[in-house]
């Protein structure tokens, strides 16, 4: 309690499914989900492994609070070595799949090897078997989800699957569950495809037990009230979703535009939360239909949108007329501001296709933006794109290319490489806006300095979710810091990284931390789980996880030289807005960060640090 204490080990090469007990010593040290699965991966695989070889493993992992009434307690993660980055990959998703896995009685599912032909895993409580997936291979996420439910005559199956992009080696395929929630980044879906594993379908009816039920109900009820009374989690996120940020970040001068050439986008308002809620001129309907909560979540930030049926993308295509997962901020930025496209319906369509074919919309949009810059410079030509003008601001380029990339056809195969490999191939590696091969999300580190350090040091490559200092630098949570200053950011980034690593290992959603600190979270874990769980101990767990991921990456061959930013952000100053004249001041923060971490100047954890964390 509240682990199920069981792992399902699936050997795809041999076609076997076996149950084994969870290592409870490791659970005590690494909590669950992100931390615990990383421990298993680090212990069981060589960090130098080719991510797309059968020797890599892929782990689906829940946290101890997954499947409980703790608000946001429905998360699961996929942990593996990522093909986009050749580093540790850990992608987190909501929806209902995580709860179903936990209710079926499994803390984790470890996939090993490679199936000789396409298969899917069917789990019904303690029964698990690999099934022939030939009828689903080549199908989209949506077709596979529907097809599996029909085949097994069970509308209550929860499905996590890849679309065509994941089968055909697009380097940033995600794994989509419940139609439009995704373990999104670093190519975890590409790993799944490389294993010939199309889908995981689960029904769980066993129930989740907690240590002290009455105390758990009491404390989770109290903490739900904290979320409800907070302005961000109680009002901003449910009403506007993460898209509430579009205009805010643009005004801050930190909205990367046209592959980071600019830091403000003239079309920001047209693709914002406000625009999604404004009736369209064409049909009088709003793009946004309603908000949606993932399992157990009382915040409900998810967007559900519906396209204008007269929009050029969907004329005579009724399969796209229904409501589906709408634009979140990062996707709206990548598909919109990064490419210079301000057609909200085109962005929404592109987002639908990303869900349908399991593309990470951040990396896809950012890669298209890089391709647009190469096209602008004459390094990619119309002949290579199949006649499509890849100009910044072209909605047609966006919507054509997302479909081609989703199916890995035509120029979509090139875009499927990700921007690092694409820009190297076309001779301008400096135009790839990536760290460790992974594209930046929607915050320009010239305008939000802490995010520069966040990106440079993120263990899974550029990512906002590893230490969301935007919270402090823009929103003032938990304390306001100046986004244009580098002073104090090393400590801020470390604090966010450690706390977030613990939250990502608990089964809870990191968005809860707009209102909750570890002081709010620890009592919930303590009431649910064996042992004693304090905020101080969770912070130690978080720091241990961070160092474990770091050690994995170092063993994989990464070095301090990989903790950097593209030249554009370090040399080219922001042209407009509050950050005008500024570059990302990474050099002012990184040495202090290493020191605070207890790492050598070369970014290697010292023996003393590892001993302090009981890791050596």
């Amino acid at each position, binding site marked *: 309690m509240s682990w199920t204490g069981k792992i399902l080990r699936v050997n795809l090469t041999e076609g076997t499914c076996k149950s084994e007990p969870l290592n409870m010593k490791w659970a005590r040290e690494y909590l669950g989900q992100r931390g615990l699965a990383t421990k298993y991966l680090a212990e069981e695989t060589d960090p130098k492994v080719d991510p797309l070889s059968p020797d890599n493993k892929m782990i689906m992992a829940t946290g101890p609070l997954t499947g409980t009434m703790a608000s946001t307690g429905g998360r699961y993660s996929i942990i593996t070595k990522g093909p986009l980055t050749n580093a540790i990959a850990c992608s987190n998703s909501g929806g209902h799949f995580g709860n179903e896995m936990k209710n079926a009685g499994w803390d984790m599912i470890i996939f090993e090897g490679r199936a000789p032909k396409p298969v899917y895993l069917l789990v019904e409580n303690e029964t698990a078997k690999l099934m022939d997936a030939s009828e689903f291979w080549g199908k989209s996420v949506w077709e596979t989800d529907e097809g599996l439910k029909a085949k097994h005559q069970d509308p209550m199956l929860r499905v996590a699957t890849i679309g065509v992009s994941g089968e055909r080696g697009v380097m940033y395929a995600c794994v989509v569950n419940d139609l439009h929630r995704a373990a999104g980044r670093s190519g975890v879906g590409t790993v799944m495809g490389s294993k010939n594993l199309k889908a995981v379908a689960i029904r769980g009816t066993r129930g*989740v037990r907690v240590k002290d039920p009455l105390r758990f109900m009491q404390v989770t009820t109290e903490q739900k009230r904290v979320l409800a009374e907070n302005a961000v989690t109680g009002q901003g996120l449910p009403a506007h979703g993460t898209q509430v940020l579009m205009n805010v970040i643009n005004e801050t001068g930190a909205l990367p535009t046209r592959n980071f050439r600019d830091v403000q986008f003239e079309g920001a308002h047209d693709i914002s939360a406000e625009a999604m809620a404004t009736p369209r001129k064409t049909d009088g309907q709003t793009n946004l*239909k*309603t908000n949606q909560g993932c399992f157990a979540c*009382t915040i409900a930030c998810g967007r*559900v949108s519906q396209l204008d049926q007269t929009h050029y993308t969907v004329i005579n295509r009724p399969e796209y007329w229904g*409501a*589906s997962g709408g634009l979140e901020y990062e996707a709206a930025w990548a598909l919109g501001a990064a490419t210079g496209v301000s057609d909200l319906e085109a962005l929404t369509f592109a987002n639908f296709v990303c869900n349908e074919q399991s593309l990470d919309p951040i990396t896809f949009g950012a890669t298209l933006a890089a391709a647009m810059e190469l096209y602008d410079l004459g390094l990619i030509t119309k002949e290579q794109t199949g006649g499509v003008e890849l100009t910044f601001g072209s909605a047609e380029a966006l919507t054509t290319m997302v479909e081609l990339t989703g199916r890995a056809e035509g120029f979509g195969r090139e875009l499927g490489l990700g921007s690092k490999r694409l820009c190297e191939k076309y001779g301008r590696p400096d135009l790839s806006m990536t760290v460790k091969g992974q594209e930046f999300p929607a915050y320009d580190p010239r305008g939000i300095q802490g995010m520069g350090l966040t990106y440079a040091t993120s263990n899974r490559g550029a990512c906002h979710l590893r230490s969301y200092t935007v919270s402090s630098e823009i929103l003032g949570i938990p304390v306001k810091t100046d986004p244009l200053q580098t002073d104090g950011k090393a400590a801020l980034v470390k604090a966010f990284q450690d706390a977030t690593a613990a939250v990502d290992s608990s089964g809870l959603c990191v968005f809860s931390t707009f209102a909750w600190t570890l002081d709010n979270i620890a009592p919930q874990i303590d009431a649910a789980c064996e042992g004693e769980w304090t905020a101080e101990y969770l912070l130690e767990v978080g720091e241990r996880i961070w160092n474990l991921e770091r050690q994995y990456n170092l063993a994989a061959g990464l070095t301090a030289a990989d903790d950097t930013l593209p030249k554009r952000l370090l040399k080219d100053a922001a042209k407009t807005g509050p950050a005008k004249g500024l570059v990302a001041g990474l050099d002012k923060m990184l040495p202090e960060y290493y020191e605070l971490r207890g790492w050598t100047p070369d970014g290697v954890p010292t023996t003393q640090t590892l001993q302090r964390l009981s890791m050596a």
Partner: protein
Amino acid sequence: MQKALLIDPGKCTGCRQCEMACSFEKEGVFNPAKSRIRVFDFHTEARFVPYTCTQCEQAWCKTACPVGAITLDARTGAKIVHDNHCVGCKVCTIACPFGTVNYNVDTGKVVKCDLCGGNPACATACPTNAITYIDAEQTGYERMRAWAAKTDNAPVVA
């Protein structure tokens, strides 16, 4: 005063706090599969709909039960399944037009909403007031009020 569950699908976000609260109250575990209330996700229509027993006055389940295992709780109006009498024949699950009586394979008995004895856990847990427990004779009150607010009392000027 008798109360009834009032469900307003327009306020539901699909979070399933109600299903967990129900299963915890009735089974002692968090297990949506065992919940007496279910949330349906009509995702292409952007609608989430919680659904459970409405406690029919002329209860088909109660009428159909061959062993008298379903009785009326006069205080709450709930139709209650008595496990010590239920033989698991499932006739009530066929009789119920709404599908809200279901069989539990672990116990061999049927389960249905009993309004938690007058303090329904689902309504307490719902974060958006999509499920409330109010005066059984006034379930239309808020909807009437909304329409009443749209009435223009100003005299028509010719």
